[in-house]
Structure formats: structure tokens, C-alpha cells
């Protein structure tokens, strides 16, 4: 019977470890090649503390959790400046360095021979030294770890993690400091992995570096992928199946000599073929393509896109009142790439409640100007002011706090998230995005979540997508995705919105719909809009004042109709000789 308990214990231990990796791989979409080492840190911490200091196993567990968590957070830090592939490099390096350390730092780790004689876990005078006794203890620890993972992934924090996975730049453009989230989740993941390690050290009473090799790290990766990335139950499935197979292989006659090699061949092939035939794993992230979202009655009874009771706040057609302060001012922004001057001394002003156009031929520097103003590119020269405050060179997520948000020409909705989540993630200042308040103030988080739910549905109602709230954004049509992106942008509550070609690649009806929507946004929701647009009909219909840009310079400003009537500008725009 002990053997059965032993197998169960292994499955639970691996399930915790796999869940910790799932937090990174499944939810943030970043691969860690060194997860075995995190559990190793926990194991060595527990072993050393309990042997040398004779301390309670819970102390070792906690110290291991914190220590490994800090190491995990530190490891994620370089991702501040580089792309995700570097994390593969850093985690492989981390795995190899720590493994070498375990082998060679004999004074601390006792080298290759490992540490024997680790006392069993003991609590309130009960010693958990047999598999049967250890099992309940482990089950409780497992429940705690899974509860933490559940809380984190089913929260505003987890929603941001998924948004990072789907599109990190778009997530930053919604005001999220994505690095902060990555560092925190790496820390949490490292800490949870360490818990497995420290429990294992007490259970087996012996640890050596060879329990934490890169092969083990890969083994855990296969379990995550097999079970199903970003599925909460996937880790249990993955751990149970692979541990089951590993144990079953032991009963194949004559296999004992080949068991390690056979196991590796087996799970290597599983990994390779899964990626081709079922990359989502056994339990996919979403079992259905659409989720039922309860919608409040008064929203349903309102017609799609119809005015809410606040009514129209301002009348269209007002144009740049004299002696009004600009809400946003761009002064002499310049940028060159190599010898090419992409933007030269571009200046423009936006006044509250106006829709301003920015037009010009392809490659005239509109996008570069846009990116500089939004913090996605650092200008060589010049400044950006929001309500008179200099915001030049601030990170995109900070600009959102200052009230400036952008949309993307290529839409960039978070495809593998529901439409509702796409909008909810954009809500500003969510305390549920704070990992600590998530656990300390559950009531406040829940209340805030209800408000954001309501607000998100309001915006979806405005763009006419209320009935699609539960669908995955990636399953919507291109036009609908554009509307999701607009709802998402509005949900940031930023007063200044930069729209990058909102009607590009849309059919005529959808263009009409978007034009109407932009008008409504500006006049009813009191937004100031800078519109970059190719379609001159759209510009004429929406904009009272436009800036004309060519070869990096702003050539003219004024009413779009007048601008286009100017033969010189028309020549630049249409390339007529």
C-alpha cells in the first residue's frame, strides 16, 4: 500500500511544481528552463536549516519560499530591456549555474554526494515519516498552493498576465507596468516551486544535485504542455499521466537498465508531437469558444449604441475656442534613424473635446510621431506636454496615467481572452492587480471587480458588442475586433485618445459605424482625439482641423477640405505630377 501512497505523493508534489511553472508558461507565455532549480533551492534551504539549526520544517519552507522567490524575481529583471527569448537563455544559464553550484560548493551543499539524514517533517509533536502520514500533510500544502494559484489566475492580476502573453506592447499601452507583473509572477512561481522542494527533502530525507537537473526542468515543461497551458487543472493531469507512465515503465521486464533513456525518449517525443498535433494540451485553456456572461436587464433593453441617460453633453461643430489652453501639445519632436530624418520639428496642439486629424502620404512620419508621443519611441529632440506638464520620454504605461492612450492600426486585441476581459483589463487603477491586496482585501477587490464588470459592459453596449461579451476576441471578425479595441481604449478612461487608422481594412458599412462611434465618443464622452487616417472621406466627415505631414515635417494645418483643395498638398498626397 505504501507504494500507492508514494505514487500519489509524487503526483501531488509534481502537480504543485507544474502549477508553479504553469503560472509563467501558461499565463505569461514565457518559458522557464530552470524550474527544477527553484525546487532545488527550496530543498537545500529546508535540508540545511533543519539539519544545522534543527528548526521547524515550516520555517525552512517559508525561508525557501522567500529566498527562491527573490531569485525568481531577480531572474526576470533583465526582461526589463530585452525580449522574451532572452528569458530562455537566462533560465538555461540559471539552471546550469545553480546546478554547478550544488555540485561544487561542498561547504554548503556537500557536493555530489548530496545531503543525507534530513529529519522528517514534524508538527505539534506528530512526525510525518511514513508515506501514509505524509500524504495528508502534503495534500493540505497542495491545496494551499493551488488555492493561491487559483486566486492569482482568476483575478485582475491574472487577467493582466494573460494580456501580457497575448500582446505585451498593447498591454503596456493600457497603462500596465508589465515588467512589474512579470517580476512578481516569476517570484511567486519560484517560491511555489521551492515549497515542493522543501517538502520533498523532508519526505525522502536525502537530496542531491541530480534531483534538480535540466532533464527534470524539461520533464516539468512537458507536464505543463501535456496537461494544457493556462488550464488550472492541467498540471494535475500532466503530472498524473507522466508520473504514471514513468512508474509503469518500471514494471517492463529488463527495462531497468534503459529506464532513464526510455523515459526521455518517450517524453521528448510527446513534447514534439504535441506541438504539431495538439499544442493546447489535453485540457485546453477554454473548453468552449464562448462563455455565458450575465448581462444586467437595463443594458439589454437599451438599443445597441444608443445614448445613455446622461444624454449628449456637448454639441458637435464647436471649433477651437479662442484663448483656450491646449490639453496636449507637441513641440518640435524630431527623430532620425541613421541618416534618415523620419520626423523633423513636428509640433501640434489638441484642444479639449476636439477631433484633430493627422494626414499625409505613406511614410511621411505619422507613425513615428505617434510612437514618440505615446512613449513607444524616444524622441531625439522636442517635448510633449499634457495640460502643460512635460511628459516627454515617459514610459507608455505612465502616459496612460497622465491621460493619454492609443489604439493600434493592426488592432491588437488580446485574442485568447474573452471580449469582456479585453475591456475589463483596461480599467485603470485596479487594486486587484496588486498581488498582496488581492489576498489581504478580498472584499474590496470583489466590489471593484463588480464595478469594472458593469463599466466594461457599458462600453461594450456603446460599441454594440454586448451579445459577444463572452466570446474569445480572436474569434470575432476584423471589424468587430476594431470595435473591441475602441471599447478597450475607452475603458482606460483617458481623456486624450490617439486613434491610429481606425477604419483601415474595413468595409463601407463598418467604416460608417466607426465614424459614428468616434463622433459619439468625442462629443458624448468628452474625449479629445487625434486621428491618423488615410481615408480622406473619414477625415472630412469627422475633423474640423487637420495637420498635413510630409517627409517628416508638418507642412500645413487647417480645415481638411481646404487642405485638400490646395493643389500643392494634393500633389504631395496623391503623387500627381
Amino acid at each position, binding site marked *: 500500500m505504501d507504494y500507492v501512497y508514494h505514487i500519489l505523493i509524487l503526483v501531488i508534489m509534481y502537480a504543485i511544481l507544474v502549477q508553479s511553472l504553469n503560472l509563467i508558461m501558461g499565463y505569461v*507565455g514565457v518559458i522557464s528552463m530552470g524550474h527544477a532549480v527553484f525546487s532545488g533551492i527550496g530543498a537545500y534551504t529546508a535540508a540545511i536549516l533543519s539539519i544545522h539549526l534543527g528548526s521547524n520544517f515550516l520555517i525552512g519552507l517559508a525561508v525557501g519560499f522567500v529566498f527562491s522567490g527573490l531569485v525568481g524575481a531577480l531572474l526576470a529583471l533583465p526582461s526589463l530591456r530585452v525580449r522574451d527569448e532572452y528569458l530562455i537563455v537566462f533560465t538555461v544559464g540559471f539552471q546550469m549555474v545553480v546546478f554547478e553550484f550544488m555540485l561544487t560548493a561542498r561547504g554548503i551543499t556537500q557536493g555530489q554526494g548530496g545531503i543525507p539524514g534530513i529529519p522528517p517533517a514534524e508538527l505539534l509533536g506528530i512526525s510525518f515519516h511514513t508515506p501514509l502520514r505524509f500524504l495528508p500533510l502534503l495534500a493540505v500544502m497542495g491545496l494551499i498552493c493551488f488555492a493561491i494559484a487559483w486566486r492569482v489566475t482568476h483575478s485582475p492580476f491574472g487577467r493582466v498576465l494573460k494580456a501580457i502573453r497575448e500582446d505585451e506592447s498593447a498591454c503596456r499601452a493600457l497603462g500596465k507596468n508589465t515588467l512589474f507583473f512579470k517580476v512578481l509572477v516569476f517570484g511567486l512561481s519560484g517560491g511555489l516551486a521551492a515549497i515542493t522542494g522543501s517538502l520533498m527533502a523532508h519526505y525522502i530525507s536525502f537530496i542531491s544535485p541530480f534531483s534538480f537537473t535540466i532533464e527534470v526542468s524539461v520533464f516539468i515543461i512537458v507536464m505543463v*504542455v501535456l496537461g494544457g497551458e493556462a488550464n488550472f487543472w492541467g498540471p494535475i493531469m500532466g503530472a498524473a499521466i507522466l508520473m504514471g507512465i514513468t512508474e509503469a515503465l518500471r514494471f517492463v521486464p529488463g527495462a531497468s537498465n534503459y529506464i532513464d*533513456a526510455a523515459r526521455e525518449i518517450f517524453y*521528448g517525443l510527446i*513534447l514534439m508531437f504535441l506541438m*504539431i498535433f495538439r499544442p493546447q494540451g489535453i485540457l485546453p485553456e477554454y473548453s468552449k469558444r464562448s462563455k455565458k456572461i450575465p448581462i444586467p436587464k437595463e443594458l439589454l433593453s437599451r438599443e445597441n449604441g444608443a445614448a445613455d441617460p446622461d444624454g449628449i453633453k456637448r454639441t458637435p461643430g464647436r471649433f477651437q475656442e479662442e484663448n483656450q489652453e491646449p490639453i496636449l501639445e507637441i513641440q518640435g519632436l524630431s527623430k532620425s534613424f541613421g541618416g534618415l530624418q523620419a520626423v523633423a520639428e513636428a509640433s501640434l496642439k489638441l484642444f479639449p473635446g476636439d477631433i484633430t486629424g493627422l494626414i499625409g502620404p505613406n511614410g511621411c512620419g505619422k507613425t513615428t510621431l505617434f510612437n514618440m508621443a505615446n512613449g513607444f519611441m524616444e524622441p531625439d529632440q522636442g517635448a510633449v506636454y499634457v495640460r502643460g506638464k512635460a511628459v516627454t520620454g515617459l514610459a507608455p504605461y505612465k502616459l496612460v496615467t497622465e491621460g493619454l492612450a492609443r489604439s493600434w492600426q493592426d488592432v491588437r486585441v488580446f485574442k485568447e481572452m474573452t471580449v469582456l476581459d479585453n475591456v475589463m483589463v483596461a480599467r485603470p487603477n485596479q487594486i486587484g492587480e496588486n498581488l498582496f491586496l488581492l489576498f489581504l482585501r478580498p472584499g474590496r477587490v470583489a466590489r471593484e471587480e463588480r464595478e469594472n464588470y458593469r463599466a466594461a459592459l457599458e462600453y461594450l453596449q456603446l460599441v454594440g458588442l454586448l451579445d459577444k461579451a463572452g466570446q474569445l476576441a480572436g474569434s470575432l471578425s476584423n471589424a468587430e475586433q476594431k470595435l473591441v479595441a475602441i471599447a478597450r481604449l475607452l475603458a482606460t478612461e483617458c481623456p486624450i485618445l490617439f486613434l491610429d487608422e481606425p477604419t483601415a481594412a474595413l468595409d463601407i458599412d463598418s467604416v460608417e459605424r466607426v465614424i459614428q462611434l468616434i463622433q459619439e465618443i468625442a462629443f458624448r464622452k468628452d474625449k479629445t482625439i487625434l486621428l491618423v487616417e488615410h481615408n480622406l472621406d473619414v477625415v472630412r466627415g469627422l475633423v474640423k482641423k487637420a495637420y498635413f505631414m510630409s517627409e517628416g515635417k508638418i507642412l500645413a494645418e487647417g480645415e481638411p477640405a481646404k487642405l485638400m483643395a490646395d493643389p500643392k498638398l494634393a500633389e504631395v498626397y496623391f503623387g500627381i505630377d
Partner: protein
Amino acid sequence: MLIAQLLVQGLITASFYALAGVTWGIIYRTTLTFHFSHQLVFTIAGYTAALLTAELKLHFIFAFFCSIATAIALGCSIDAFLYRRLREMGATKATTFLSSLGFATAGTAIVLLLFSSNPRSIKGFPAKTLSIGDVFFTTADVAMVAISLISVGLLLLFLRKSRYGKVIRAVGSNREMARNLGLDINKVYLLVYAIGSGLFGVAAFLFTLKNVAYPTMGVFPFFMSFTAVFLGGINSIAGHALAGFILGMAENLGMIILPGEYKIMIAYGILFIVILIKPEGLLGSKRG
């Protein structure tokens, strides 16, 4: 004299890492595939040389070319049968990386199963120890330095001067433009895998000549090759060679202060610091 000996050792390791760096670098720079199975290509090429000379008693120069051929065949097959399929499915980079990881894991285990963990060496090479003053090195070391540096030089020359070299660089810099020019991306990728794998085959032969072949022999050279790529800057093949060279020198000169077991820490430490200060790498450019 210890310093002089370490400098010579450094030169040997540095040439080898420089070669290792460019082999993975040209693949990664052009295809942006985190080709983890590169290590398996190394192992198979090393075993080819050892088995042909020891078991079939073939001449080592013949075995050298067979190593290269095997490496090219394996590298190109991985691209043609695995990566191309994933590309056509629109798989993410992570998915491709994982499938490559799976293939490498299974392949290494198969080598272990077939040949056990006993080391195999190349037979018939006139191995001799030479010396200049108090500094000692072997004929295998001389071959390693000479052939590695010549290979790196030829590759850089090829990329700069030949038509195909320019095509490869164009694809690496701007995929869309290359496609618009009517280039067959799959063919360019295949060429790149052939070059990268073939040169890694050269490296594997040199490694086996100096050391022995064993199932996990590819792990460490592969680790150094991708470390060199990220250290040197993804876009610059010359940067990969330079970074590999620096890693090799640092590893040996580091022994003046640290025990030899710490070579991974040295490489990783250099990478960590450089990436924090200059994220685009030593010779990398900020754009693209």
C-alpha cells in the same frame, strides 16, 4: 608561464566558441527559430566521426567530411520536416522551441540507448604534443584553432561578398521585403540550416578530435553558441564570433582567479552584465 599557457588555452577555446557562435547565430538571425536541436546535430556529427574511424577504420579526413554531411542532413531535415510544418501551421516561437526541445531530448536519449555513455574517440589522427618554450599544446589544438578561424572567416566573407550571402542577410533583416522580392523563404531557410549545421559539424569533429564523443557532448558547446549570439547581438554574425571569442578567453583567463568548474558562471555573468548595460549586445544594432 601559467599566464602564457592559459592564453594559449584561451585561444583554442575562443576559436572553438567563435565557430560555435556563428553556426547558431546565422540560423537564429535569419529564421528567428530557437533551434534547440542544434545540440543534437553536434552530437550526431561527433559520433559519426568517432564511429567511422574507430569501427569502420576509415581515414579521419574522410570521416571529417562525413561528419559535415551528416550534420547538414540532420539540420536540414529538422527544418524541412518539423519547423516548416510548424511555420505553415502558424505556430508561435514558443511552440517551435518546445518541439525542438522535445526532439533534442528524445534524440540525445536515443544516442545514449544505442551507444551507451562510453566515450568514443577518433582514431588514426596523428596526435602529438607540441611545445613552444613552457607552453604545451597538441596537434588537435592546432587543427581546432586553424580550422575554426578559417571557417568563421570564410562564412563572414561568404555573407558579405556572394549573392546568396546577401540574400541571407536580406531575409534576416526584412522578411516582408524579401518575400515581396519573390524569394523562396523556405529555400533560404534550408540553405541557412545547411550552413549552420555543416559548420557545427566541423566544430563537432574538432571537439571529438580534441576530446571524445559522448551522448550529452552537444549541451555545452550549444550553450556557449547561443550565449555568444545573445552576447554579440542577434543581428551581427561578426558579433557572434567576437562574443564567442571573448567567452573562450574569459573562461580560461578566469581560471587565474576561479577554479575551472566556474566556467558557466563566468559566461553567464558576462552575458548578464552586458545585457543589463547594452541590451542589443556587443555589436548589435538598436533597430530590428
